[in-house]
């Protein structure tokens, strides 16, 4: 009996994680608290069973995540005994970087891109596993599974190594590092089907619930704490919403939905007419904005 599509995707991801552990000196798994991170952690547990995953998880914390994300992260770390490193860009904190004040571009650069580089350098990680998928965005569709970064964390899209069969060339120069994407060939729907099949816990924000939101330039922004400045006369209203993708709360739009379970989400996706990253402010900046960010070192 041939393996099903989910089994084959799972097999590929496990194979990739094992290659990284076998060949890298100091690997780490990036943990963003989102559904892809939940799936990645689950795959790592399966890949190395009965041993524990032989690498820590790194959360690059912008300090602007949803409160429920922090609760989920801390609960999971405790329950599953995850070796979790949290890194915040201390300089950014001192500068009081605020996405409402400085905008998404500066916030993302300082609190995410720079913070990630700092953390990788600080701990000397030479391979970082990330949950990015090729279906998310066009520049990712052409990125290799093993993606090399210069000592300055730059990505050169015109100089990528060919990847044949199941053979990944993990060799790198001193001070170069690798970003590895085991979920490259998964789609959003695959991820949810796998979460369903494996009963993987995810942040409750993915499920529809009455939440306080304001409408801003066509998007629904959740008022998650009192750092959010309200315009004169702007009053948060309770709407039944959920999130398809999770990032910093001021930059992540909610969608109106009644899907309050994994099955309901899959059902909603089958009827959905917009793509996953539509709710992300960061992608709307300019054409190929993601490609530029990646060249600069964004994951």
């Amino acid at each position, binding site marked *: 009996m*041939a*393996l*099903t*599509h*989910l*089994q*084959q*995707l799972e*097999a590929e991801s496990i*194979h990739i994680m*094992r*290659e990284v552990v*076998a060949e890298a000196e100091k690997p780490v798994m990036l943990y963003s608290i989102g559904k892809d991170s939940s799936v990645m952690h689950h795959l790592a*547990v*399966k*890949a*190395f*069973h*009965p*041993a*524990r995953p032989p690498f820590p998880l790194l959360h690059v914390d912008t300090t602007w995540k949803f409160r429920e994300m922090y609760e989920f992260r801390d609960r999971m770390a405790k329950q599953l005994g995850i070796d979790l490193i949290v890194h915040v860009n201390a300089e950014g904190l001192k500068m009081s970087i605020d996405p409402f004040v400085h905008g998404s571009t500066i916030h993302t650069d300082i609190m995410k891109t720079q913070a990630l580089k700092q953390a990788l350098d600080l701990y000397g990680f030479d391979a970082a596993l990330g949950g990015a998928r*090729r*279906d998310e965005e*066009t*520049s990712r*569709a*052409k990125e290799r599974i093993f993606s090399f970064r210069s000592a300055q964390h730059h990505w050169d*899209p*015109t100089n990528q*190594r*060919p*990847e*044949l*069969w*199941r*053979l990944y*060339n993990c*060799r*790198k*120069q001193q001070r170069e590092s690798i970003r590895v994407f085991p979920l*490259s*060939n998964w*789609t959003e*729907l*695959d991820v949810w*089907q796998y979460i*369903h*099949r494996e009963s993987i816990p995810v942040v409750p924000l993915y499920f529809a619930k009455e939440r306080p939101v304001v409408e801003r330039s066509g998007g629904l922004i959740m008022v998650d704490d009192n750092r959010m400045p309200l315009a004169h006369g702007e009053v948060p209203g309770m709407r039944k919403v959920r999130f398809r993708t999770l990032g910093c709360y001021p930059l992540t739009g909610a969608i109106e939905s009644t899907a309050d379970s994994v*099955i309901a989400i*899959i*059902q909603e996706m*089958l*009827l*959905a*007419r*917009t*793509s996953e990253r*539509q709710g992300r402010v960061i992608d709307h900046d300019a054409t*190929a904005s993601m*490609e530029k960010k990646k060249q600069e070192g964004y994951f």
Partner: protein
Amino acid sequence: MAAADISHYLEAQQHKGLLRFITCGGVDDGKSTLIGRLLYEAHMLYDDQLAALEADSKKVGTQGGDLDFALLLDGLTAERERGITIDVAYRFFSTDTRKFIVADTPGHEQYTRNLVTGASTADAAILLVDARKGVLTQTRRHSYLVSLLGIRHVVLAVNKMDLVDYARTTFAAIEDEYRAFAKQIGLGDICCIPVSALKGDNILTLSDMTRWYHGPTVMGYLETVEVDHARLERAPFRMPVQWVNRPHADFRGFAGIVTSGIIRAGDRIRVQPSGRESRVARLIAYEGDLTHAVPGQPITLSLADEIDARRGDIISSADAPAGVADQFEATIVWMNEQPMLPGRPYWLKIGADTVTATIAHPKYRVNVNTLEHLAAKRLELNEIGVCNVSVDRPIAFDPYRENRDTGGFILIDRLSNNTVGAGLLHFALRRSDNIHWQAVDVDKRARAIQKGQKGCLLWFTGLSGAGKSTIANLVEKKLYARGRHTYLLDGDNVRHGLNRDLGFTDEDRVENIRRVAEVAKLMVDAGLVVLVSFISPFRSERRMARGLVEDGEFIEVFVDAPLAVAEERDPKGLYRKARRGELKNFTGIDSPYEPPEHAEIRVDTTAHTPESAAEHIIAILEERGAVGSV
């Protein structure tokens, strides 16, 4: 969707298969349009993506404002501006029965590398031809590559049928010509479909415009074509060991993917290349132990006996083990701007094993357009050749035709770490089985003790005219005076004898150094202090020489003179000749010199006389104890 429907849907999803395929065709044959059309028809395009596509189509589209599906796939901005897909892009879509991973690979001749990359993981291929142009050279080239990489199922999509009025005769002529060619190269399962990717004819449903056609639609074919699974299940068991799982002293598991065969607890296995045998004790999985595992499944297995297996070994069925050898014939596809040089050492990765490999002169190169065999001294980017390959220790393997995972390898440049080539193993060479290393009783140490010294290899490298031979000569005299047994191998002298058949091309320079390094190794083995004075311009060959002797025995001496100084000295008048164009491939002029990065000794000849340089070298050698008494 009602609750009953969704549970039915989810149930069905648990049985859905996966098909990987590639599309090949020329720049204007409509590959990207076809994939865009498949995504569109499979309802994989969301409103915001469609809106972006509409905007892009108006801005940079080539369809006069109509949806230009090609734009969906041209991800990177640089490529988009050039209007060409230059890399392999992967796309996904799904129907009720299968998930599809599409590798979109370009058709330009110089991009053989991308096509081979995309084909290496594909189960099926769609070849596009323009109905107006028929079977072209590039169609033959793509078919050859697809067949070379072991793809067994091919669709010939005769596209743009709308532009030939859906003429049956046009289609039939193309089909006949293609089938004749496919037979010639041994492509088995061919399906020819008349389509218009732009209009959607015969993509999802049979078109009213081609009522004469009764075969499957493109989507229909993709949903039902058999993947290679049944054949792999019947093949003998193989699992390359990826990682040894040792959470505590009482457990040792071997993790890897089953690449062929079915494995059950209790089965007899052989660890290769060591050849030790045991039985499978358990198949461990997160959900609990498995009774059996099938091809493609990642497993961790434990063995009944405590035998050793390392990353890179292959665990095989004991009844039908893999081959073990250190010399092979293979087809090599070269993927790098730096040509493949016979004799140069590369890393070779196969399964989970990495070894050092050298490649002999190509037996022939294949003209991918005509399939003719041509003579070749090296392989350039996008060239394909058949060569003998030797590796530095025996490895387990299967012929590529039988198993892609245990018969396919990549070659990695040892300096840049780039993947520079791909290889498909054919068979082991007989001489590999028949030549054994003869063990001798009087060894290196015994010979060195008799001479009262330690053998070592002093490797002088530098530009012509830097002063290598002069300094090496002085060093030898001083060592001789101290009672050391020495031998000086000089570049010019060796070229009069052992290497007189070699010229100055890159290939010959590599072979020149290989022979000298091997001779030097024998002399070190004999207990001598060997001085080699050779330009030896390439880092990788010096590294190869270093690898031939033991740690600490190789001492690289960089005789450093700036090009201007060496050229000014020009003791043999060679620079003048090279400048006049009378001497080709002269190091420093029209052939590169790669200076050492970590030489044990560097001599700055602008600051030292040869005499003081030689004294300096002797002092360092004594300090290191490199030429001391045993």
